[in-house]
């Protein structure tokens, strides 16, 4: 029961983007389309889970004074592995995410979970925490990405979902940078209203 809690808390209750407001830089940058959002979310989930495992395994060996550089080395290694493997086996996804993958290193969700959770917990809860937080991050990206892509390009996952007349002159601002800020702000506000009402 407790383990399920570690896994599920990332989706809504402690959603990294909407509640904890972590990792906003990649959130704003990659959500211009749903495809990008899914790719970035899954890559970050993979790195987060792997780094949580390693960090919970070696937490007793790392002196607390140098724990941050150690975490960064572990995370950066996994990011590089993801980068190389994606480049070799899924070149199409890599082409559109290429710029953002190195940004995972400084995605504060990953360092945040390493510091706040993995360095204090055993391996199994750390895996679940990583998966849950990662998928919660992915969920948030997909929600924002869907709104932006439908409004800004009239498409969803690259398929036309709006009338042709709309696609010809869509609400461009939604897929430009200001649209990311506006839509994320509105969503955060909405979630706060719902949470307060409880």
């Amino acid at each position: 029961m407790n383990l399920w809690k570690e896994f599920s808390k990332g989706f809504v209750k402690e959603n990294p983007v909407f509640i904890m407001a972590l990792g906003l830089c990649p959130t704003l940058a990659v959500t211009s389309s749903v495809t990008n959002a899914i790719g970035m979310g899954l890559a970050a989930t993979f790195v987060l889970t792997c780094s949580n495992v390693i960090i919970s395994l070696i937490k007793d060996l790392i002196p607390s004074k140098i724990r941050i550089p150690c975490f960064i080395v572990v995370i950066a290694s996994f990011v590089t592995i993801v980068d190389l493997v994606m480049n070799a086996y899924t070149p199409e996804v890599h082409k559109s995410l290429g710029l953002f993958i190195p940004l995972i290193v400084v995605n504060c969700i990953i360092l945040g979970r390493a510091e706040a959770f993995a360095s204090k917990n055993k391996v199994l809860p750390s895996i679940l925490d990583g998966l849950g937080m990662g998928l919660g991050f992915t969920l948030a990206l997909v929600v924002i990405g869907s709104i932006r892509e439908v409004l800004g390009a009239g498409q969803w996952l690259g398929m036309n979902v709006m009338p042709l007349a709309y696609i010809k002159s869509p609400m461009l601002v939604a897929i430009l940078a200001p649209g990311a800020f506006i839509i994320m702000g509105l969503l955060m506000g909405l979630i706060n209203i719902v949470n307060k009402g409880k």
Partner: protein
Amino acid sequence: MNYFVKLGLVLLLITAIASGILAFVNGLTSEKIKANKLVAEQEARKEVLSEASRFEKQTVTLPAVETEPNPLKNKVEAGPRQFIYYLGYNDESAIVGYTFVASQYGYSSEVKTMVGVNLDMSIARIKVIEQSETPGLGANAATADFQGRFVDMNQEQLQVDKDGGAIKSLTGATITSRAVTNSIAEGMKILADAMTEEGK
């Protein structure tokens, strides 16, 4: 003192293991990454020059560019430049055209275009292969509609309509259109010069 040496050693150990793993993964993937790149380029070439089945790389060395003397800079950045194009052969080993990559900075990114040229120096097809221009405006340069505007154009016609040419520019993205058009025109000129020189 001992404590700090120990800290350093722990960090050294962790980074050493990490770099070992990275070297291993790099060894596994680097060949595949190189191969992917070649395949992607080859496919783009085929797409812009569909009659050709085989390509042969050619290199032209261009004279150094004369740059305006800049009082703020001591170094004049100019050297011999290279222009790379490919001869396209059909199944009977006859030359059917040429391809090259045109590249110029647009509004917010380097725009690279693969260009296929017919033997009579008109454009067969073009394909924008790399850009990160403004979504919805400049990024539309990668659409079939815009790329189709270049088909059958020759070097003299290669200017956007605002500059008096025959290429209708994208709405609200003249800079991107101009980058694509001018880079292709420049490449076409070098290619034509190279052809006359070799008497081909």
